[in-house]
């Protein structure tokens, strides 16, 4: 099944995002309790869902990397985590704005999703020091994949645990409409979710394409210049370069 091309994604994403924004501002009903402020939910929750799914996707790529040793999967895992961390930061910021506007506090421990997110975010932030701390490229990629698999398995477990830790009496702080969402909210939510998901996918595909292209470029450059020295590259970003072909030494 061929994946949608980067160009198709690049067209679809702004369309979906714009449609989502339009629906949020002109179509979705005002929440009875929280008023206009509640509309940040349409950004906050899709960001959270995409970030979490992104972390799990990174874990899947990591499994494939461990099984095959192909650095392309490590590249996909790395970029997925990168995008999800950025989205995760946005989740925390939008969550804080929402909490501040609704409850007057910048942070609420009473919202289990937000708390789980903080923990997951803190965990995945350690991905970068881990990669920096291992110099051997191949081992760095392998250990990063082990981390991504472990952290990916941790994400759902963490959500279960934090959910359980919240008192069943204390109401969800940022929940909307206890009795379920009306259809207009559902539609708006789904369109926003689609827009954010497309945005995540486009960013990831774009970054992967950029890295592969620059790797190809440096390979060509080296072939033209005839040097065998590896191009200076980031210490941690997977270069997705195939292993250099061994040249038999003739004596």
């Amino acid at each position, binding site marked *: 099944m061929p994946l949608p091309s980067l160009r198709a994604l690049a067209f679809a994403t702004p369309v979906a995002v714009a449609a989502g924004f339009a629906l949020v501002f002109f179509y979705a009903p005002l929440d009875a309790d929280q008023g206009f402020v509640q509309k940040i939910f349409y950004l906050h929750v899709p960001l959270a869902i995409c970030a979490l799914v992104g972390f799990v996707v990174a874990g899947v790529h990591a499994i494939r990397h461990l099984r095959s040793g192909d650095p392309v999967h490590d590249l996909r895992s790395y970029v997925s985590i990168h995008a999800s961390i950025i989205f995760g930061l946005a989740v925390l910021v939008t969550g804080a704005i929402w909490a501040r506007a609704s409850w007057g506090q910048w942070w609420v421990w009473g919202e289990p999703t937000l708390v789980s997110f903080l923990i997951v975010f803190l965990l995945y932030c350690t991905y970068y020091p881990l990669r920096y701390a291992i110099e051997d490229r191949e081992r760095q990629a392998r250990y990063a994949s082990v981390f991504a698999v472990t952290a990916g398995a941790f994400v759902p477990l963490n959500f279960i645990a934090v959910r359980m830790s919240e008192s069943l009496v204390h109401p969800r702080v940022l929940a909307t409409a206890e009795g379920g969402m009306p259809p207009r909210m559902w539609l708006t939510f789904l369109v926003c979710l689609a827009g954010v998901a497309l945005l995540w996918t486009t960013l990831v595909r774009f970054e992967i394409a950029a890295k592969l292209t620059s790797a190809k470029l440096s390979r060509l450059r080296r072939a033209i210049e005839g040097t065998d020295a*590896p191009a200076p590259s980031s210490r941690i970003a997977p270069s997705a370069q195939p292993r250099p*072909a061994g*040249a038999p030494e003739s*004596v």
Partner: protein
Amino acid sequence: MATEISVEPGTERAAVGEPPPAVELRGLRRDYGELPVLLGVTLSVPAGQTLAVLGPNGAGKTTLLRVVATLLRPTAGEVAVLGAALPREAWRVRGRIGFLGHEALLYRELTVRENLRFNARLHRLDTAEEAIAAVLRGAGLMRRADDLVRNLSAGMVQRAAICRAVLHEPELLLLDEPLAHLDPDGAGLAGRLIGPRPGRTRILVSHDTEGALAEADMALALRADGTVGYAGPAAGLSPGDARAIYAGRDR
């Protein structure tokens, strides 16, 4: 003049009736981070022979030994040890290799005998106690066998490490400066334990050029940049040539 035997790593030379080479390297390359340490080593060591590896500090001798020991995987090129292609089939030869590196690989808080028993159990030796007694006698350590490694002098530790390396009667013995720290008595005892033996292939890294070449069948001289200066029968490399390669004067 590399002694190249063009055989696929791991295949039998059934037609001729000769056993496969104990160690086969083809274009072996190993990087440390971004820097190449070994560049394109090609060599074949027939079973039962001794290979002397010479070169200045930093030439990659220790790295080469660790790759053959299955402790490091090659960045590029092909490596076959005792008929198994590394790193894929490393599990097939673990237990048939004896390795003596710069570190003794002994636990300081255990006695010599306890360390040897530990290794014997890991290697699943049947007649562990007899084998342990035999190597202890051979190394002249019977009286100190129940002393903690922490309390032994450097020479005794080296002898104990030699015991560890040969305890399981390996087919391939890898020795990195085996006579370091040893007084003439110790060196004599050790020499008998690690000396040539039918059915035993040895790779010997040493700074004692004359001594190593004298007992070697094959020689590999590495230059400071990790390239190969000479790879072939030991008789074809005079100590003078070896010194030239050491000093980088051979080009």
